[in-house]
Structure formats: structure tokens, C-alpha cells
């Protein structure tokens, strides 16, 4: 996180976030236990250990659904941006819940046989060619391995080691993990249950996730094809300076290269790359705090005049020249030479 970044300004509830997560997990598991133990019809009541391991699986699945909702929701409306802030805590918690779920399954269903429990888990049901009796546990194992790799590399240390592109590619495996878990439940719990509740909840969750990702992705693609009006000399039209809210930005899409965020800080206009060095967050959806553009995703900061993170940080992003002509802001699509300070354009007649 960038130096001098005041958590309180961007996410006042950051601390309560983890408390809410813990509380949510406890409430979910308790409700599941009470529901399954107290309200199940006579004769269909499972043992408490079975209910507990199901509750943990269901909680991990619900948490993963929530995690995957946050990304597209934040793309569709900035109201959800603060939720992105601690998403990794949700991810690690989800992995831990799923790990306990898997461990209990291993102990309870496979711990009492003569076979090694892992062999028993993966080989005792060989019907890999059937749908109804598919060894759905194996899908859970693969998903758990993916969640493990992601939880283990969730720290920024690994983001730096792998580089943001590799890190992002690795963490996009989460979508495959989600599909595997949907299959795990559809081919497992759904087949065994009389009530359609499991099928409905899992089906609706997966449909919602897919719909939001497709809609958000479609909007992004449309934005990428709506290029800024460009003059032949590389200057892109942004619009009247006062249309840009103070401390915030308008984002323009050049014909080539990354999007550019054009910020207004009082009467000064600056332009920087829209892509955060950390994980590619949309800087143009952040705002200027203490003179620095602050990324809406995790709070990295950059000085808008030279694109450098304030000391002791060393990240640097591209900056662009701007000019104001006849009451319209233009930005040049070529970045300024790296590290060079670019003077802001000043809105004529405005108060500094």
C-alpha cells in the first residue's frame, strides 16, 4: 500500500470488514446446523458431523459466490468499490472453510477403511464415465488445489515476484474452480437430495455470477471500441474541463494502448495511465487524495504530475501531456518520457 495512504478516507469500515466476515461465517454455519438438525423430517436427519461438513462446504461455496460477485458489481457501479479492498481475506477464508470441509470428508467418509484415505477418496468410486454416480469428490479436490494456490499467492509478495500479469492469469483460475465446485455440488449433493433446494441455490448463484460477468465484460468491450475523437496529430478530445468532477477523472480510450485517466485537481488538469501498477486497477475511477491519485482497488498512490508513487515506494505509471483549447481539454495519446514531470493545464479564470 502506498505511503501516507489514509485507510479511513477510502474505506472507513475496513476494520469492521473482517469482523463482519467472521460474524457472517458463524451465522451461516449456525443457521445451517440449526436448520438441518432441528427441521429435517424424522428419519432423514443426518449425523451432526455430516451436517457440519456440509455446512462448511455450503459456506465456502456461498463465500466464493460473494467474492466473484464483487468484481463485476464494482465494474458496474462504484458503490461496490470498497468491497474490493479486502477481497483477499474473503478468498483465504473461503479456502480455509473448504479445507476443513475436505478434511472432515476425508476423516469421516474415508478415515475408517483399510485403504489410505486419499486412495479411498479418489479410487473407491471409479464411475468416471457416468453422470449420476460420478465421483464428484475429485472435482472438489481439484477446486481445493486451485483455491490453495490462490490463497498461498494472495500476498503482494507474490504479486511482485510473479508480476501483475502472471499473477492475474493465475488468479483467473478461480473461475474454473467455481465451475468445478458447481459441478461438485450438481453431481454430488443435488443427486442425493430429495428437495430441489440445492439445485435451485447453486443454479441461481452460478447464473447470477455468469450474467454479471458477461454484462460487465460487454460494457468494457463497448468502452474499448468507443474511441476518443482523435486529431491526426495524436491529440484526443476529452471534453470541457469543468465536466470533470473535482479530484476525479474522465477516462478516454486512445486508438491504441491503454486507457488514459484525465484528472482535475481544482483548476489543474493532469493525465495519467488508467492502469494501476499493482493489479491493473482503474486509476481513473479513483480520486486525488493528498495530492496523489489513489487507486480505487487497494489504495496505491501516484503523483499526477510525474506518475511516481510517493517515497519510499517506487512504482511509476505513464503520464500524458494535456492542453485546453477553446474550452475543451485534449490529451496526447503518446506518454511523456518516463519520469519526466508534465506541467498541468490550468483552467483559465478558475480559482486555483
Amino acid at each position, binding site marked *: 500500500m502506498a505511503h501516507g495512504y489514509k485507510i479511513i478516507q477510502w474505506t472507513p469500515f475496513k476494520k469492521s470488514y473482517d469482523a463482519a466476515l467472521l460474524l457472517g461465517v458463524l451465522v451461516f454455519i449456525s443457521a445451517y446446523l440449526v436448520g438441518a438438525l432441528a427441521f429435517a423430517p424424522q428419519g432423514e436427519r443426518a449425523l451432526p458431523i455430516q451436517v457440519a461438513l456440509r455446512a462448511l462446504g455450503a459456506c465456502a461455496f456461498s463465500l466464493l459466490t460473494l467474492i466473484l460477485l464483487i468484481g463485476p458489481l464494482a465494474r458496474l457501479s462504484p458503490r461496490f468499490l470498497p468491497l474490493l479492498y479486502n477481497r483477499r481475506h474473503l478468498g483465504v477464508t473461503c479456502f480455509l472453510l473448504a479445507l476443513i470441509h475436505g478434511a472432515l470428508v476425508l476423516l469421516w467418509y474415508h478415515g475408517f477403511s483399510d485403504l489410505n484415505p486419499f486412495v479411498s477418496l479418489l479410487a473407491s468410486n471409479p464411475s468416471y464415465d457416468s*453422470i*449420476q454416480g460420478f465421483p464428484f469428490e475429485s472435482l472438489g479436490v481439484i477446486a481445493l488445489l486451485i483455491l490453495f494456490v490462490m490463497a498461498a499467492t494472495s500476498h503482494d509478495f507474490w504479486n511482485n515476484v510473479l508480476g501483475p*500479469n502472471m499473477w*492475474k*492469469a493465475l488468479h*483467473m483460475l478461480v*473461475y*474454473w474452480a467455481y*465451475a468445478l465446485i*458447481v*459441478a461438485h455440488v*450438481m*453431481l454430488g449433493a*443435488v*443427486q442425493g437430495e430429495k428437495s430441489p433446494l440445492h*439445485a435451485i441455490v*447453486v*443454479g441461481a448463484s*452460478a447464473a447470477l455470477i*455468469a450474467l454479471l*460477468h*458477461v454484462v460487465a*465484460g460487454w460494457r*468494457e*468491450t463497448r468502452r*474499448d471500441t468507443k474511441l476518443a475523437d482523435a486529431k491526426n496529430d495524436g491529440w484526443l478530445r476529452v471534453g470541457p474541463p469543468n465536466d470533470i468532477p473535482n479530484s476525479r477523472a474522465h477516462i478516454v480510450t486512445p486508438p491504441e*494502448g*491503454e486507457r488514459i485517466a484525465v484528472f482535475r485537481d481544482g483548476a489543474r488538469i493532469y493525465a495519467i495511465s488508467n*492502469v494501476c501498477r499493482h493489479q*491493473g486497477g*482503474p486509476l481513473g475511477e479513483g480520486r486525488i487524495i493528498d495530492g496523489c491519485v489513489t487507486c480505487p482497488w487497494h489504495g496505491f498512490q501516484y503523483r499526477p504530475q510525474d506518475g511516481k508513487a510517493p517515497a519510499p515506494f517506487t512504482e511509476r505509471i505513464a503520464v500524458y501531456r494535456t492542453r485546453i483549447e477553446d474550452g475543451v481539454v485534449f490529451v496526447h495519446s503518446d506518454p511523456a518520457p518516463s519520469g519526466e514531470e508534465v506541467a498541468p493545464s490550468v483552467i483559465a479564470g478558475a480559482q486555483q
Partner: protein
Amino acid sequence: MNRAQRRAHARLWPILVLVLLSVSAAALVAKARIDSAAIEAVAVLAGDE
């Protein structure tokens, strides 16, 4: 997200939607078959009595 990441998402999601749809459909069809077979079996048993 940068351009490459947006493109990766745009390419991945149609595939995922297909995977999710086909897995869910296959599972529900299999379940419906087994359930109706079970109902039939119960009816046969009841008829035998």
C-alpha cells in the same frame, strides 16, 4: 484491468457459461431420470402387493 486482461475475460466467459450450462443440465437430467425411475419402482412394488 489492462487491455489484455479484459480480452482474456471476454474470451473466457462464453466458454465458462457453456460449461456451467452443460454440467447443470446433464446433472439435472440425470437426477430427473433416476427420480422417475424410483417412482416407477415404487409403483411396481405397490402393484405387486
